[in-house]
């Protein structure tokens, strides 16, 4: 039997507390083509219920399951596993639709419309479901479980320590010759030249001293760091005595606390003319402001910033700072603060919160300036990961996690991304170390499933896919036609949409499947 669907409705999750007429939905499902069985259960995520559903699936010889439940990533994994194990259903032929969030909640004041839409949604999902093909998941063994950490700074050492604690062999590449105490191997005076291989089986070419060698690894942590700089910008140029934040900090630490009014600006270039992205030093700016007030309460301290985002629990310190009478003024980059005249000692700005113009006379002007590590460019080129406009290593989408780059198995932490405080760098180093350890510790990489596939007949070897894919999955194979490296493919389908010869298809999101779903969904009149 092919293409027989079992439709399972979970009363708890998909009926919206009686808003939808379940019996009507059930009737529609049973009458739909390709449906082998349609049932309503009170609560799907119940072991006995799932077991009986799996038994029914086996009995009715269905080969795919459509669940009307919560969002796919919120369904308990055991539900899917039970169907896979007990009813031998391909894991890619189980899908769930989320009527509650797609239909019930957004249309709660239109019960009739919601019912019609739910029916349309159900039918369109059934028509797509019937067209799916079973897919396979493949695994590759990792050749090694090495974790390579680039940079032996605060975050790098923390990352290496965390990975080593989890039983992985770590290799730290440090560009200087300084002595580093760390677990695993430390390679002084070394740098990354290039990288080959796919996720989990990377081969780095490194230059250690005068020697070039290859280094196999499963995961890489980029921890190149950054440092305080004296770099000035247009604002700082207009004030001869403006000093970088770290120098103010040094003075405060040596009890040379300034008197009068201190203004700390988040960047020497608020307009963003020279540095595209401002330099971030929120934690340091806040700490320094608070220390000044503690040591010299009569000193007025203003923090002038576009955004204040100190790391993690340090946010509690906002209250403390406010109690110490540190003043916060937020500005808009479109209307940045400026000096009335060169060395005038008056900063003019518009307070974003009040919308009012403020003229701030000051005695000391400090600005936070942290330049990105210049080595980032070479390293990002070698690892083929993106850089942000200010020269930091760019992390991937936040949904991948705050320390992940778009390339699987490569993580980034600390000031390599953008300048940050010691504690934040340490926390990120810990996170990156744990993520890398988990990635490498798995010992194998999984791939396949909903990935792209090329059709050599149709391919005209135009290289469009090769150029479009951010993951280097398509390549021109021995036959002179495009092929997909399954290990690299993440299943986004960008190459499919762009292929001028329509020679690529993405499993589970083929043109036919998407068209069938759209057409059916549009048929209903709601």
């Amino acid at each position: 039997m092919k293409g027989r669907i079992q439709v399972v409705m979970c009363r708890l999750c998909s009926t919206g507390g009686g808003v939808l007429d379940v019996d009507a939905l059930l009737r529609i499902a049973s009458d739909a083509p390709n449906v082998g069985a349609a049932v309503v259960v009170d609560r799907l995520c119940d072991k006995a219920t799932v077991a009986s559903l799996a038994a029914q699936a086996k009995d009715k010889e269905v080969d795919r399951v459509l669940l009307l439940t919560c969002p796919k990533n919120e369904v308990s994994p055991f539900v899917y596993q039970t169907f896979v194990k007990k009813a031998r259903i391909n894991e890619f032929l189980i899908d769930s639709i989320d009527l509650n969030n797609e239909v019930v909640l957004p249309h709660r004041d239109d019960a009739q419309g919601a019912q019609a839409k739910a029916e349309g949604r159900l039918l369109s999902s059934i028509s797509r479901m019937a067209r799916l093909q079973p897919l396979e998941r493949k695994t590759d063994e990792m050749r090694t479980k090495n974790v390579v950490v680039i940079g032996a700074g605060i975050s790098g050492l923390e990352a290496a320590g965390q990975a080593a604690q989890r039983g992985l062999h770590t290799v730290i590449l440090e560009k200087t010759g300084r002595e580093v105490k760390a677990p695993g191997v430390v390679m002084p005076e070394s740098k990354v030249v290039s990288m080959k291989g796919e996720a989990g089986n990377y081969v780095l070419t490194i230059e250690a001293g005068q020697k070039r060698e290859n280094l196999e690894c499963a995961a890489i942590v980029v921890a190149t760091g950054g440092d305080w700089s004296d770099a000035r910008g247009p604002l700082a140029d207009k004030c001869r005595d403006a000093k970088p934040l770290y120098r103010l900090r040094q003075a405060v630490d040596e009890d040379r606390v300034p008197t009068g009014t201190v203004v700390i600006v988040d960047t020497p270039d608020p307009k963003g003319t020279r540095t595209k992205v401002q330099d971030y030093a929120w934690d340091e700016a806040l700490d320094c402001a608070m220390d000044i007030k503690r040591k010299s309460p009569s000193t007025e301290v203003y923090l002038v910033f576009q955004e204040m985002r100190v790391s993690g629990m340090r946010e509690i310190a906002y209250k403390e700072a406010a109690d110490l009478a540190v003043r916060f003024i937020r500005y808009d980059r479109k209307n940045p603060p400026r000096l009335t005249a060169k060395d005038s000692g008056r900063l003019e700005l518009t307070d974003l919160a009040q919308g009012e113009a403020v003229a701030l006379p000051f005695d000391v002007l400090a600005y936070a300036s942290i330049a990105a590590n210049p080595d980032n460019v070479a390293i990002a080129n070698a690892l083929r990961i993106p850089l942000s406009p200010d020269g930091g290593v760019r992390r991937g989408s936040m949904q991948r996690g705050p320390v992940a780059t778009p390339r699987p198995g490569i993580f980034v932490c600390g000031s390599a991304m953008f300048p940050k405080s010691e504690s934040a760098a340490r926390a990120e180093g810990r996170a990156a170390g744990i993520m890398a350890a988990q990635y490498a510790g798995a010992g194998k990489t999984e791939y396949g499933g909903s990935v792209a596939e090329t059709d050599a007949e149709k391919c005209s070897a135009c290289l469009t896919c090769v150029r479009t894919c951010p993951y280097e999955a398509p390549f021109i194979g021995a036959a002179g036609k495009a092929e997909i490296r399954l290990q690299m493919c993440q299943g986004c389908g960008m190459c499919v949409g762009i292929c001028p010869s329509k020679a690529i298809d993405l499993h589970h999101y083929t043109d036919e499947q998407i068209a069938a779903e759209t057409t059916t969904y549009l048929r209903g009149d709601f």
Partner: protein
Amino acid sequence: MADRRPKVVGFCCERHAMDSSIFSARSGRTYDTGLRIIRVPCSGRVDGMHILNALEEGADAVFVLGCLEKNCYYDTGSVEGRKRVEYVKSMLSEVGLEPERVEMFNVSSSMAWKFPEIVSRMTEVARRLGPIGSGGGDGR
């Protein structure tokens, strides 16, 4: 048909776009029932064909919703998606259809308020333009 609601198709990426729709539903926002969400892995997967097919099958307006361009899960996906949408728009004006019927938007998963805004904007467009080929609003 008297009771015909505008039909809007939204191709939503599985990442930030779907998340924003779920978040908007969970935070108590409502929108027009005429929206049909078609889930795609990434807005870069959307092909001009899909949009045209939707218009042909009765959609009055189509939007593609992807991640923010600098926070796209697939890095350049939503940039690619936008190119595709722009191409379709230029094609529509060439054949004499209103290019406003097709739009591309970007959201982040935390932008609960934006999803209903996008839907109502596209529904408004669909109401104003009426069914394809009608040469004006259907008076609703």
